[in-house]
C-alpha cells in the first residue's frame, strides 16, 4: 500500500485492476492549503496517459507486477530483445516500452523485465548503474573549486554533466531516476 506522499516519478501503482506508472510528478502546496500531488499516469498495458491530482488522504495498491531477471541481447529497428538465462525463452519490448532505460543499458547485462501476467511491459532499472566514459574533455587541474561541469558521453551514447576531473575510460555511477552523475568509480 502506498500513501500519496510516496508518489514520485516512475512509481508503479494499480488503479481499477490495471498497472500504471507515474511519468511526471509535481508537488504543489499553497502555504495555507492542502498538499496536492499532481501526477501524469501511463497505463502500462495500453500506453494511454492521463493526469490526476491526489491528496494526502489518498492511498494506492502496488501494481501487481512480476519481475524476471533477463539478459539484454540486442536491439534492432524498434525492438529490444531479452532472454531468460535459464529457459532461454526470448521476449521483445518496443522502444516506447524501453523508453529512457535505453540510455543506461549495454548489451549482455541482466535487467529486470516487468510482466503483467505473461505480458512483458517494461524494464525496472536498478537505481544506479556504472558505465564507462567514452568521451570527455581532458581535466585542467585545479578546476574543481569553481564547481564547473562539463559534458561527458558514456558507452550507451548517453550524455550528461559531470565534474571536470572525470576522464575518458573511467567508470562513473549514474542515478537512473534522475539521469544525473553520482560519483566516480575507482577500480
Amino acid at each position, binding site marked *: 500500500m502506498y500513501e500519496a506522499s510516496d508518489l514520485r516519478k516512475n512509481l508503479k501503482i494499480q488503479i481499477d485492476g490495471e498497472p500504471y506508472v507515474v511519468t511526471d510528478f509535481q508537488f504543489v502546496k499553497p502555504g*495555507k492549503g492542502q498538499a*496536492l500531488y499532481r501526477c501524469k499516469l501511463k497505463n502500462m498495458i495500453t500506453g494511454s496517459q492521463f493526469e490526476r*491530482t491526489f491528496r494526502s488522504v489518498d492511498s494506492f495498491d502496488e501494481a501487481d507486477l512480476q519481475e524476471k531477471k533477463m539478459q539484454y541481447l540486442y536491439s534492432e529497428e524498434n525492438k529490444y530483445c531479452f532472454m531468460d538465462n535459464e529457459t532461454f525463452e526470448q521476449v521483445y519490448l518496443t522502444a516506447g516500452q524501453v523508453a529512457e532505460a535505453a540510455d543506461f543499458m549495454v548489451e549482455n547485462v541482466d535487467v529486470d523485465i516487468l510482466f503483467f501476467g505473461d505480458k512483458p511491459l517494461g524494464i525496472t532499472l536498478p537505481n544506479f548503474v556504472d558505465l564507462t566514459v567514452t568521451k570527455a574533455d581532458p581535466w585542467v587541474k585545479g578546476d574543481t573549486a569553481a564547481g564547473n561541469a562539463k559534458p561527458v558521453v558514456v558507452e550507451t551514447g548517453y550524455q550528461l554533466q559531470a565534474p571536470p*576531473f572525470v576522464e575518458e575510460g573511467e567508470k562513473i555511477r549514474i542515478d537512473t531516476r534522475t539521469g544525473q552523475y553520482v560519483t566516480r568509480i575507482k577500480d
Partner: protein
Amino acid sequence: MDEQWRLARKSEALRIRSAVIQAVRLFFIDRDFLEVETPLRIPEIAPEAHIEAPASENWYLQTSPELCMKRLLAAGYPRLFQVARCFRKNERGQLHLPEFTMLEWYEKGACYLDLMERCEDLIGFIAEKLDRGDVLVTAEGRRISLEKPWERLSVTEAFRRYTSLTPEEAVARDRFDEVIGFEIEPNLGRGRPTFLYDYPVSLGSLARLKRDDLSVAERFELYLDGIELANAFSELNDEVEQGRRFEKEQQRRSTAGVTVYREPERFLAALPLLPDSAGIALGLDRLVMLFAGSSRIDDVVAFTPEML
C-alpha cells in the same frame, strides 16, 4: 571530491543568498524595526488545517514564529522582524523543503494594504543593493519588472479571469486549493509581481475581516513568476473570535485524523492587547531563487535533507 564539487557549484547562489539576507536586515533596521529571535522549539502551535509541525519530545518545532512575535507586539514592541528557520512535515518538492527560512515582520498601525507597499519597497531595495536595477530575470529567461505599483488582483476577480467558478463555489466543493494551485497561480506575477487579495473568510484563520465586506478576510499573497512568495494579514485581535476559529481548524484536523494541537492559551490571553497591526511571512529561500535565477529551492540552500 564529488561532495566538494557539488557544494562548490552552489557558490554563486550562496553568495546571492547571503547578500539578500544582508539587504533584508539593512532595509528593516533602516526603518526602525527591531530584529528578534524567538524559540524554534515551542509547546503550542497555531492550529491550521493543513500545516503539520514535527514533534520534538512533547513540544514542536515551529511552523512559523507567528505566535511569539505577536505576543511581543502585544507587549508594546511596535515594529519587529525575524529571519527564522521553520519546519513543516511532509513538504518536499521543487519549491518546498521540510526545513526552510522565513522572513516575518509585524507593524503596529498598519493594515494589509500598507504591507503591499512595504513588499514593493523591500524587494526593490534588495534589487538595488544587488545591482539588478528594476528587472529580475528567471531561470527560463522571463523578465519581471519591479517598477511600482505592482498588480493588485482580488481573489474574486482572479477566479473570474482564470476559472469558471466563484471562490465561494470552489470552497464549497473543497476545490479551492486545487483551483488556486493549478489554474490561477501559474498566471500570477508574470511580467510583474501580483498581490492576490481578499480571501474567503474560511481561509484566513488569523486574519481580520474586511471592514466594509464581512464576506472576505484582509489577507493577501504575493506572487512572482507564478511562485507564492508571501502571505500577509491584517491581524485579528479579537480573542473570542480567534478562539472560535482555532476550534474550527481543530475540528478539521480531527476529521482528517491528524494531531489535534493544544490550544495556544498564552497567545489567546495576549490577543486583547494586540494593537491594530499587520504581519507577513515571506519565504526567503524562494526570494533568493528569484534573485539567483534558480528554478529549484535545492539550488539556493547549501544542504538539502537528502544530502545530510
